[in-house]
């Protein structure tokens, strides 16, 4: 143990449209890389075991629990975190709908919920309230804002049923 073997890897991603590089150990998760190395703390750690969904981000447009992704395994990917959703001047329709429907209280699960909802909409499977509820059940909310969350997603889905029409 005294002499640390050189196990570090060079990795690069396009995160929110910006190329980010780092040298990391192979056991570092994408979640910890985002939060600790890139200071993208909008992505939350709630369990570190893929049980709560607070760490949900989009990799190449697909929603994923970033705590279950070893960062080295997805080098080269396009990653979207909550910081890359909406613009400083204008909220993404889902962000606006979450505020409008009070789909949050403490706000800790919220970035994961929004990333997950974007992924859900682009999957194109969920059409009804029941399907939204089922498809969003990987994202826990202890404040219990589920009704507002479904209201918000339902509204955005009705206005833009095709995910490609979302910004």
């Amino acid at each position: 143990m005294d002499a640390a073997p050189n196990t570090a890897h060079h990795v690069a991603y396009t995160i929110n449209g910006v190329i980010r590089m780092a040298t990391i150990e192979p056991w570092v998760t994408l979640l910890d890389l985002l939060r600790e190395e890139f200071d993208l703390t909008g992505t939350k750690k709630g369990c570190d075991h893929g049980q709560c969904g607070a760490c949900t981000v989009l990799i190449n447009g697909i929603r994923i629990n970033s705590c279950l992704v070893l960062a080295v395994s997805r080098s080269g990917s396009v990653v979207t975190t909550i910081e890359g959703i909406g613009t400083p001047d204008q909220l993404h329709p889902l962000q606006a709908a979450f505020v409008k429907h009070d789909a949050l209280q403490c706000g800790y699960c919220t970035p994961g919920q929004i990333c997950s909802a974007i992924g859900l909409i682009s999957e194109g499977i969920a059409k009804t309230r029941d399907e939204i509820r089922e498809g969003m059940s990987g994202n826990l909310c202890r404040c219990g804002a589920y009704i507002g969350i479904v209201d918000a997603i339902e509204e955005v889905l009705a206005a833009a049923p095709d995910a490609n029409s979302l910004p």
Partner: protein
Amino acid sequence: MDQEQTVTGKSILRVDGPQKVRGEAKYAAEYNIPDLLHAYVVTASIAKGRILSIDLAAARRFPGVVEVLSHKNRPWFWPVSFLYKDAAGPPGKPFVPLDDDRVYFSGQPVALVIAENYEAARDAAALVKVTYKAEQHTTDLAASTAFKPRKRRIGVAPVPHPTGDADLAFAVAPLKIESTYTTSPENHHPMELFATTVKWGKIVTVYDKTQSPKSVELFLKVAFRLIGRKVRVVSTYVGGAFGLGLRPQQSVFLAVMAAKALERSVRLVLPRDHMFALGYRANAVQTVSLAADEQGRLQAVRHRAVAATSQFEDAQDPMLLFSASLYRCNNIKLTYELAKLDTVSPCDMRAPGAATGMFALESAMDELAYVLDMDPLALRLTNYTERDQSENRPFSSKALRECYALGSERFGWHKRSRAPRSMREDKELIGWGMATGAWEAAMSPAPARAKVMVRSDGKFEVTSSITDIGTGTYTILSQIAADTLETTMDRVVIRLGDSALPFNPIQGGSWTAATSGAAVQSACRKLKSTIRSRAKHTGVLGRGQGAELLSASALIDLLKLQRGRKLSATATMFSFPFGKKFSSATHAAVFAEVRVDEELSVVRVTRIVCAVAAGRILNPNTARSQIIGATVMGIGKALHEDAAYDHNLGRCMAHGFADYHIPTNADVYDIDVVFVDETDAEVSPLGVKGVGEIGVVAVAPAIANAIFHATGERMRHLPITIDRLARAGSR
């Protein structure tokens, strides 16, 4: 200001919403400081005993590790236990991590690894070798001895004295029930992990997950004798807490200890499994005996509770408070006891005590209704009381009757067929149940302060150390300030959750809106009169005396004439809890529909109507969310949440959300919240009663009663899991 322009009482969107949906809101673990060290806790694998040896060598050699601390090499802190008392602590000796070689509970911190990065600290923690001398432990409430706590916990109402002769009345009454109800321990599990980031320096800035930055600041100053240093505790955003942040937590103690030992900045994030050993909702065994005459009038109420506590503290909560005051009865006997377990101390969890006690009382009322062959709602109305008989005084307001009326109407209760198993659709049995909820409505016994200042841009800055744990505090305090200052909310800038800001008590007891809100209102009123008198002196009175004087341009002019003097006001809100002529409580009526798969015993809570009387509602939008959220937590209490112990190991078998189930989106169907009108001039200056906890109280009994109605099975243990219901049905 006319009614149309005011914002208090209106559904205003959460002011911190945009920051939260953008991911800009920073929580305790999200302040990235240069040269930050990361800590990880090693926890005890036995429930009781002593540490014989602790081998730190392998962990120390691990690449990146800076230090490993245990009780043997930790820095000095006061060895006097009373110094670690906090505002929310029960009688006893508070637990202090790494104090000595004793192990009080499984999952107790026994060492702390500090490393250059998180992964190294975590991995090295696995290399710490601890040997123990285990002693006989007990974590089984049923197997331990009950006792009456010798010292009462400050702030918890005493158990009401007996009235009449409940034993005799019960013995002679014609119609009665007596049942025993049990509950599993529950954990709070806010989504944010308990975490602390300490920025070490001349000023020690502690970013902490807490419901009281002020009490954490005081605790740290005393514990670590930080002479010559200023301690500032910052909790701008708190990712939920539900009571687990009422007391200074193990995480903040350990993080500051490490920072002091190494004189470096340190972050400690507890993993989810460690959060099972921070505190829990006390499990309890309760026996309720109810007797009635033929008309359903209560003749006797007996309620005995034995609640879990730790070996080192006598945790207490108001489990029986409403058994004496909710229904009219002349013969009441209440017994509240504790039993010591080798666990961490229980910690207040949303409507502590009441949520568990009312499960027993309201289940028993439902059982009695069936003995009487009476509608459960009619039984409650028959025993309705306008006076608090336990204190022999009237309520400051009590619109529970209106809750029953409005709730039952929205639910369609009159269409219910009384017999169990009488409603079904396809493979599912349908059940309708109801229960009453009550919770204390009070101002904080500790004072609250607020400051409001005119900024150079003519906006008002409101500051208070109170936190917003998801409650909507930022929003309602902004509304109160805007209305009092006769302006719009966009001219109010609010800063909270920082111990450097004016003193506020812990955020708990559903008292924040009433207490901190009144302080903000008072500070704003003072500022207005300050502005008027200064305007008089400086001669800017040409603009009139009214709202014109408070316009941004007038205030900017006034500030210029002040030559650097600030325009600000601070107010303190005191509330005296003694000598009150009224009792005050919030009330709720909850109606629940369940659908139970007859073959598989899967329960779905398809509909809940919750009618709430909570005085003045400052913001129906955020208040409704509070009630919905508490209802969801009540569904968890009824059906899911079980911090199950292996009593042989004395260890909680749940480690995360995979085994400690909380409601998911798919578990939550239709929840209809309605606030009934209730005016209360006595309870608080704003007429506010508080909505943080009342929502959870009646949900679990309403669901349990609905399950009885659906299946004919009386489930007297929470949670009512699939296996328990299936087993009951197969008997």
